[in-house]
Structure formats: structure tokens, C-alpha cells
């Protein structure tokens, strides 16, 4: 099953295009956002992508996550009986 991952280059300068091309060539992987100088967003089965990134120096990988605006307001969770 495919999932969405963010790959970030930790080395000096911008992300190496050769590394990005290796990700692009991975079977089942689709690069959905290449607009960052240091990152790409990839939809891929986890295992083969993790194996590939493990061979690329200076890259880290994590599932894409979401963060919220912190709120302090109480909310109703259920109506009265």
C-alpha cells in the first residue's frame, strides 16, 4: 500500500538531482512535490523507499504529518440525553 513521505536532504547545498532521479525511478514511487530546494514529497510503498533512502547519503525520511493551530476552547462532544 502506498503512503506519503517527505524526504529531506541534510547535506550541504541543494538536494542532488541524481538522488532525486533514483527516487523517481523507483518502481511504484511518484514524486508529488519537488518544489523545495532540500525536500521532495513522495507517494510510495514504504519498504522499497526506505531501502533506497538508506543507500542515499545525507537524506532523512518520514511519513508526511499534519499539525494544527493550538486551541484552548472547550468543545461539546455529545448532546444531552
Amino acid at each position, binding site marked *: 500500500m502506498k503512503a506519503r513521505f*517527505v*524526504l*529531506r536532504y*541534510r547535506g550541504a547545498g541543494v538536494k542532488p538531482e541524481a538522488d532525486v532521479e533514483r527516487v523517481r525511478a523507483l518502481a511504484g514511487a511518484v514524486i*508529488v*512535490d519537488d*518544489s*523545495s*530546494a*532540500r*525536500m521532495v*514529497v513522495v507517494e510510495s510503498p514504504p519498504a522499497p523507499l526506505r531501502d533506497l533512502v538508506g543507500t542515499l547519503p545525507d537524506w*532523512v*525520511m*518520514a511519513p*508526511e*504529518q*499534519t*499539525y*494544527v*493551530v*493550538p*486551541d*484552548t*476552547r*472547550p*468543545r*461539546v*462532544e*455529545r*448532546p*444531552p*440525553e
Partner: protein
Amino acid sequence: MAKATETEQYVVLPPRGLRAGTSAGDAQAREVLVGAESVTGGRLSIDGSQVPVKVIDSIASNGAKLVELSPASALALRFLRPGLRVVPVVYYTPAVAPIPQVESRPVTTTSGRTAAGDTITMKVVSKKDKSPVVGAIVVAFVDFAGRTGAQGVTDGAGQVSLALGAASVQLQRLYIYPVDGYWSLIKKNVTVSSASVLTLAPLDLAYTDGVRYFYPSSPDDAGAGVTVGVVDTGVAAHPDLVIAGGANTVPGEDPTDFGDNGVHHGTHVAGIIAARGTPPTGIRGVAPGVSLRAYRVFGQGSGSASSFAIAKAIDQAVTDKCDLINMSLGGGQADPVLTAAVEDARAAGSLCIIAAGNDGRKPVSFPAYDDRALAVSAMGRKGTFPTSATEAGDVAAPYGTDKKNFLADFSNVGPQLDLVGPGVGIMSTVPGGYEEISGTSMACPAVTGAAARSLTPKILKMKRAAARSDAMVTAVVATAKPLGFGPTFEGHGVPRPD
């Protein structure tokens, strides 16, 4: 939660990796890590200061150390050597599957009514002229602990209809949150019916709220020469705000649209830092002289942001030479990509200042707890908000040396905290007007503004590298005044520059 004098276990690390290298940037970390190998008398000597420490384990003479420290000693160590990472030891436990819960749901009858029965229609009006208050969120609890009740939004006539099960209902708590222009309202143990009319007090921009209490004087040039990036929901055009530029890093959206996404949060945050208005017709932030940049990471109308958008915004802020990056967001799982972005910013001479989260005394949330960022909790002060406002429900122990000061009930806490800021009942800019909101989201920009005021020209001229960020941390922390809550609630205290 440990008291200030109790010890906890920490890992002390160099700026990157597990071993201090031989570069100039690692020199101070190397000195401490090597020095810790031969600690005598349980005290580590740094620049003449004696920091109580017990070294439990070490991976190498120049490597990470497992130590026991009091929270106060951990703060001292961070202050004396800001390049070090001093990270509380985290123990992981297996995730336990949640116990299935039965949730009551409304049952729709043929008449279209819910099983909760008849609705109550209340009216919300202005205390000033009895005009209807439109768009206010009304939250009514018959059982507050069980979060049982009903909520709605006032219409054009200021009316809201709530299915509360009877024509007259005793509420344990009633909250009203206006969109803008008014103080919120809380009522406890109140009986409501369709005859109920609730009045809201208009905001007075000359009122001394928490930010204006701690930062009463903000001259036009306060923070001049400092560039601040606000990574948030975007910032709207407003008469009190000057926005130098920014970017939208939400995938699929216009990269140049960094205006408010409709949630108003980022515009409020920006005003706390840099609003240039003059009361009573406008409002003034902590550092009106900064150059303000907006980085929108929340999609249009959305309350959530992706780790990719946030990391990309941090990168862009660094590229745009932001000195300080305000992040009033968080709460998700730890993420190596976002951690890397915060660390890379620090290594490039920029400093992320991040809200600790509003989960009510829970541990400091991610990414605030990252040791490369400054984590900010929220405090309030009695007398800086009306007793009828919802903020009255945020008053809780611990109280400060000055008993009017309290740590906000909603604020997260922990040894990762660096600073505390005023975050209860804070007035600031929103699209088309002004609103008062509470949260660590508001405390964070108050601290960011104060941080901007503490940066000297000498620091700002430093090469954009880790030593510059470290110098900024030292400068900000040096202005902090403890309020008496203790380090696990306030870090070094509230920054009071000038």
C-alpha cells in the same frame, strides 16, 4: 513533575551528532563533554560557574553524556553553553489500544428535531448599544466534565438555537467566543431559556492586557534591524501591520498568497509581535520596528498544516534572512524532517521560537520540545482581563511570587521549556479588526517580540551560522526574569528587554 531541586536524567549532546568534532563550532561543546569526564565533587565548572551534575554514562570522552541534573541546572547549562543540546531522557512504552467507548449520538425524529428535544434560542448583544453580535461561537455545557451540551454560531440577528433538551436548562458552563471586537464571556451554573440575552463587553484597545502589562512601552524602532518570520495561517493586510514579504508553502496553492487563510490565527500572532497602531484606535505589538514576513503553511480555510509545508517555510524564512522564526503550532508526533528543518535553521543563524502547546499541563509538544528551538509556555495575570471573560477559567496554580501571576491552566509544561510569555486574554489584529485570544500561540509571539528587542547590532552582524543563533539564545535568556513558577513551568522566566 519534578520540582526545581529534584534531579532528572538528561542526555547532553554536541550541536549535531553524538560526538563533538574538532571544528570551531563544536569547541565549547567539546570542552564541556570532555570536562564532564573528570567531574569532581559533583560540580562542573564553566566560566567560573559551578553546575551540579552527576555523570552516569558516556559514549566517548568527546561524546554524549547521560547525566542527572535538576531542571535549574539544566537551564544553567543551556545558558552557559547554548551550543549544547541538553535533552530530557525519554522512555517509550508500548502503545495500548484504546478501550472502545460508547458515544451517545443525536437521534433524528420524523419532525426533524433531535432526541435532545426543543431548542433554546438565545440572543447575544453588545453591552455598549445592545446591537446584535454576529458570528459568535456559543458553547453550552449541561455537564462540563462529560462535555455534554450543544454549540452554535450567532446569526445576523445575534441569535443562536441550541438543542438542550428542555425549554429552560441549568448549564454548568456557558462560553461565548465573539469573532472580533468583544471580550469573550463565561458563565457558570446559569439557567438559560429563549428569553436569555447575553451581553458582551467591547474591546478597549487602550486596556492593559497581558502583553501591554509586561511590555508597556514599544517605541516605533523597537526591534529595528531584526527580521521576524511568522510561520502560521498567513497574515492579512491590516492598518496596524506592515508586511515586508513572505511565501505560501502549501502544495497546490499560489506561492505568493501569504495572506490570512480565514482562520485569523497568523494575523493575530503577527500583531502581537509587530503591530504599529496607537491605542485607542489601533494596537501596538512588542516590537513594532521589526521587518515582518509571513509564511503561510495552512491551506485556505484549513486548520492543519503538513510537515512538508512547515519545513519548507522554515527553509524559506532562513533563505529570506529571518533572524527569528515564530511557530505558534505543533502537537503532532515527532518528525525527523521537521526536526531537521529546525536544526538546519539554527545551524544557519536563525532561531525558531515555538509554542509549547495547549493540552493542559501535558508535556511540551513537538516541535517545541526540540532542543534546537526555544519552547514557550503561557502565563496570565489577574486584572489584565475582565473577570467575566472566558480567561477567568484559565486561572490556575502555580502562582508566581506576585500572586496575581499564574501559569495558564491550558499551558503545557516540562523541562524542555525555555521561556514563558503572557498568553491569556491577548488583544491583537485580525482581518478587519481586533480580537482577544488566549493560548501558548499568543505567548510565543510575545516572547518573539521581546527576543527581537534583545538582539544587539553586534549579534545581528555575526556570520549566519550556529554561533549567531547561540548568541541570540544567550541574549534573550539574559533578559529573562523568573516569575516564581519554577523552571518546569517557565524555563528561565519572562523576557524583559530594555
